[in-house]
């Protein structure tokens, strides 16, 4: 797979949220307003790239050569948890506005399936470091695209007349169903499966 195809696959065809169902909790939690969606996407992009690099290096330099592949779950998640803590401290000191905008979402990135999933995919697809970077970048941008698009939809839904049983999550899910249906149109784009 050449690099462009890896990117398109991660960004659109196998979009992490709408096609793979990974990263749903922040998807529904943060997409209520565009500003939080943008902030969350930025944080996810940053953490995802760093996590992809550190975990790739740890796997190929330590885990695999030492035959300790079975430790990858624990190692990857520990790395991600620490990275998130570091990002949180950095934001608190240097980017106060973003820090107060993201509030409780930062620790939530730790349990964000998307980041852990990317680290696993990098191993399963046997990417080299460059390919892993492109994959992480494509995934993070795909995440950002969907979350921000969906935020615009949800902001409209706020004022729409919806029956009480459907208010909140149900109508958001159904909205996501429709967006996901649209994204299915990207299947087999450029011959990617």
């Amino acid at each position, binding site marked *: 797979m050449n690099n462009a195809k890896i990117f398109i696959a991660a960004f659109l065809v196998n979009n992490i949220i*709408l*096609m*793979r*169902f*990974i*990263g*749903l*909790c922040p998807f*529904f939690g943060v997409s209520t307003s565009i500003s939080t969606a943008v902030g969350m996407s930025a944080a996810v992009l940053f953490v995802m790239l760093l996590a992809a690099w550190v975990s790739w290096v740890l796997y190929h330099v330590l885990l695999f050569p030492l035959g300790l592949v*079975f*430790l*990858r*779950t*624990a190692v990857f*998640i*520990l790395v991600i*948890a620490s990275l998130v803590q570091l990002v949180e401290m950095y934001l608190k000191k240097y980017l106060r506005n973003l820090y107060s905008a993201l509030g409780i979402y930062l620790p939530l990135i*730790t*349990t*964000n*399936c998307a980041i*852990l*999933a990317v680290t*696993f*995919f990098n191993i*399963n697809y046997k990417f080299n470091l460059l390919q892993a970077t492109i994959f992480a970048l494509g995934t993070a941008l795909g995440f950002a695209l969907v979350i921000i698009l969906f935020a615009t939809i949800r902001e409209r839904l706020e004022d729409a007349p919806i029956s*009480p*049983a*459907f*208010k*909140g*999550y*149900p*109508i*958001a*899910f*159904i909205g*996501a*169903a*429709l967006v*996901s*249906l649209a994204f*299915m149109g990207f299947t087999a784009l450029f011959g990617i499966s």
Partner: protein
Amino acid sequence: MNNHPSRLSYLTSGIIKENPILILMIGLCPTLATTVTARDGLGMGVAASFVLICSNVVISAIRRLVPDSVRIPIFIIVISTFVTIIDYVMQAYQPDLYRVLGVFVPLIVVNCIILGRAEAFAYHHGIIDSFLDGLGKSIGFGSVLFVMGALRELFGNGTILNYPLLPTAYRTSPMLFAIFPPGAFFLIGLLKALVNKLGWGR
């Protein structure tokens, strides 16, 4: 079984009133991804239940030894231990299920339900209570996973657990929408609306 009133409620609250997926709205990723058929949903439910119950018990057992500031990494290590166990057990004994569930087995470690219960419950309660809480929540989300899987398989394939239930005419051209991602979102939206209408958790 304990008949202490609050003990029993730990068990039963997880099934309806505090159903993790339909009321607390956590643990959504596996719910939508792994419920293409009833068997997959059930398999995922069992795997995650194993991790939830075991980690609840262990964390409750060691809770007095764990200082507050490092508790999250400790929880994560305990949970990832059990996830690794179930990962390799499934690879060995249920390889086709493992192939279908794919990356979602190791992703159990970041399932909000498990870390959430560890933090909110197991860290502050005794072993039996934590076991009951874990069991209750497991039944809760396990049933949702099974129901979702069954419904999606029924509409998308005409079968449940591979038993044909709908007439052949339907099964030759079923509603594929149910099997694909949009169908999953749609179905859980309807389920949640139904739960809202019935007033669960209020």
